[in-house]
């Protein structure tokens, strides 16, 4: 009985990693996973010598081992100096080149190649995520429906304290901050359901602030959009006030109509237009 439960535990342990970036389901996370593997292999060459030499030297030159010449005053050698400064510096230079390149191509603001992206506006609230589809006049809370294989461009802000949006299997995270906009580009390779969350603590309901990303085939996405637009619920000022209050919603909800320019209004009420260059332009 107990051995069976231990076996269950062991299996569960392995599945943990499948929820993270080591099991990527989109090009961004996939690319970042590749970088992770590359860097880890390079670093094995850095950590390896220390992990080998430390116990080796400590044990070999122990006090009770009188076999080797004891050189109490030996404290310098140009050879050793070269060995401990040059290779690590070389590795860091190599990693720096790698880093510069990958940081440019994995920039969360960088548009993904392919079809025109789906536009989504994500607004962080306590303790829920609101996703507005400005082109569809549709919004959803705690569920993000996207077409598989199409790029998605998300603009984020917060109607409350600072938060951070992470969908580990699709892309890295970016903060959502009141009065400021940040951007994130994601894409899913294939249909599926992926976990998304806020990773920046924001009070008592924090642990519940999860959402699900549903990637569906393109045709299904159009069906979903059409169905969502026909829905009865609207995201008006009153609903917004209710949503903004600190609370956890039990199940994801969808809205057929959204107050026009909701995202911009949230930016404005969080005082943020003063940071935004667009204000001067208007």
């Amino acid at each position, binding site marked *: 009985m107990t051995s069976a439960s231990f076996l269950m535990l062991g299996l569960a342990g392995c599945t*943990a990693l499948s929820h*993270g970036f080591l099991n990527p389901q989109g090009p961004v996370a996939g690319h970042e996973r590749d970088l992770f593997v590359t860097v880890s292999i390079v670093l094995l060459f*850095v950590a390896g010598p*220390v992990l080998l030499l430390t116990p080796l030297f400590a044990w070999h030159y122990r006090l009770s081992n009188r076999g080797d010449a004891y050189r109490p005053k030996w404290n310098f050698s140009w050879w050793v100096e070269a060995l401990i400064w040059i290779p690590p510096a070389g590795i860091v230079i190599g990693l720096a080149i790698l880093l510069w390149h990958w940081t440019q191509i994995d920039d969360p603001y960088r548009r993904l190649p392919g079809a025109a992206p789906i536009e989504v506006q994500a607004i962080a609230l306590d303790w829920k995520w609101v996703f507005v589809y400005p082109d569809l006049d549709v919004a959803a809370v705690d569920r993000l429906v996207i077409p598989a294989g199409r790029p998605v461009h998300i603009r984020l802000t917060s109607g409350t304290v600072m938060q951070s949006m992470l969908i580990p299997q699709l892309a890295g995270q970016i903060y959502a901050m009141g009065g400021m906009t940040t951007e994130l580009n994601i894409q899913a390779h294939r249909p599926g359901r992926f976990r998304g969350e806020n990773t920046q603590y924001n009070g008592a309901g924090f642990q519940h602030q999860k959402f699900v990303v549903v990637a569906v085939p393109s045709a299904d996405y159009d069906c979903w959009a059409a169905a969502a637009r026909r829905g009865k619920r609207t995201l008006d000022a009153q609903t917004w006030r209710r949503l903004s209050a600190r609370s956890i919603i039990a199940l994801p909800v969808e809205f057929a109509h959204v107050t026009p320019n909701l995202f911009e209004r949230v930016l404005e009420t969080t005082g943020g237009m003063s940071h935004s260059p667009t204000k001067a332009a208007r």
Partner: protein
Amino acid sequence: MTVSAPLWPAVLGRFGWQDLPFVRAWENPTISELIGAFAGALVVVGAVVVAALLTRYGKWRYLWTEWLTSLDHKKIGIMYIVVAFVMLSRALVEAVLMRMQQAVAIEHPGFLSPDHFGQLFSTHGSIMIFFMAMPFLTGMINYVLPFQLGARDMAFPWANSIALWLTIGAAGLMMASLVVGEFSTGGWSGYPPYTERAFSPGVGVDYWIWAVTLGSIGSTMAGINIACTVYKLRAPGMRFMRMQMFSWTSLCTSILMIFAMPPLTVATLLLALDRYLGFHFFTNDLGGNMMNYANMFWLFGHPEVYILILPAFGVYSEVVSTFSTKDLYGYTSLVIATMAIAVLSFTVWVHHFFTMGQSANVNAAFGIATMTIGVPTGVKIYDWIWTMFRGEVRFTVPMLYALAFMMTFVLGGFTGIILAMPPLDYLVHNTLFLVAHFHNMLIPGLLYGMLAGYHYWFPKAFGFRLDERWGRIAFGCWVVGFYLAFFPLYVLGASGMARRTQAIFEPSFRPWLYVACVGAFVLLAALTSLGIQLWVSIRDRASTRVEAGDPWDGRGLEWSVSAPPPEYNFAVLPLIDGRNPFYDHKHDEGQPDPYASPSSYEDIVVPRGSATSVVIGLAAAVAAFGLIWEIWGLAIVALQIVVAAVVLRSFGRDQHRTIPAAEVAREHEKWLARVRATPAIPRQLETAAVNRGLAEIVA
């Protein structure tokens, strides 16, 4: 539930009965509230028991005159370390509670309420950084540095005492938050706007602000004091390139403190202005911008990492060289590497917010700057490895810590490079991967270092050695506990588990959370073993005395005096003629006898104790308490007491005491006679009872 109304605002400010954990637990006896009440009761009962014992044994006067008001750097150092151990115990218990909560709260609410959990991770982080690590290293530097420089005290003994008492006052506020009110749930970094009044209206954040502010002012003062001591009080002939490595790392640490602590003080004070006076530095609205906070906080926060780690690097340099019975390899490289780390540490703070939307170029530049620190750090590790080469390594407790450090720290460096890569940081920032990384740096890098130093210098400070067996048990528990507690967190972080999560909704995380929880208990066992070790060591001290003062065949000047040392450290200030004067004099042919009688003695002037520093530190804490609870009268009166104490001290005369040459001569000659009667022992016997603190001279 009754609403807590403030009682007589002028006297009790915004205090209501509900602010007492006992009342809350009475009205709503959940396990979470009962734990809170128990912790509060522990603080109260602890204070009462200590007071009762002091009264019973009539030790109040002794404690006051010999310790609390003392300006002696050795006693101040020891008091700092006592504070560090007390706070370590609390913060470690909190860590165990959090791990237990996470282990049971898988698709289940667990036993701690979300708010209680939030307070726990906030106090755990704040305490470990500001009231465990900082006092520990400041105390260690305080105790050891003047000896290594050949000085009789720190540069500013009174300021030294004020810094200590500000730290104690701030730690007192942390303890008070257990008994009256609540603590912040904003984490150790207190990010606004969450910590603004609009989102955190209670007293919790105010406790955090004032505890951190007092602590940071104390640390700034300590930094100035340490730097001035190094610059001004080196013994004749002690050139910079002759200083022990620990003195070097102390100097670099102090420079970091001087430049890094003020941004923190400014950040917390601006946050206080937001909260108390309605300013809008970091609020969401009216032009506030929390990015300014992030910048200032991490302008402190990143160098802080090296404030914490550099002193430990110093300890490891001493320990590895001493217990390899060999010169430190690559002294010059180590000095250069230390300074490089200190300078570079100010150039990388943006890596704490790679995910805040700045351009890829900015992120890449700061990522590369961050990785660069890996080079000097790696060099240091290799220098210690090559120090063992062709040496005679002895596996004493401090050396075991050093070895465990080298092998574990390199894994932390590995994950550090991963975090320095912005695309990878996007994936694991704010997850348990990050938590695992910084514990991987700070436990081997700071805690092991401080514990190694504690075992290494304890016999110097108290005149007897710590028990070796319990030391090894504690060491084993720290190492095993560390791996069990933190390696699962790397896996969980890579699986996307956010930090600071009170409940978990992913059953596949369960086994890893169980292992981490077991690890937390092993770490608790490690701390308990240290407590047992101290008790056993005190009990058996008759058989481990080392009056001659040099139990490990040490190198620095601290080993050339008696254990415990006299108040004035050196009867005659040493003349420095090399990098390891004491060691070379002991071991080299044709060198002067390190235990020879000096030709003459002089009067020595030492600072007299002062109550003003105690008053300043405690009154500052009372003023902070008044501000937290909005008891304005109390705050004003306490602040006036602080000012009055400073004024009073500046009129004070007789701040010094002269120890006549005859008395110094008598004491010193008595010790020299004892040294001559002490049998010298070979290194093989250093942990045996025959080790009375005199190393065998093998030329």
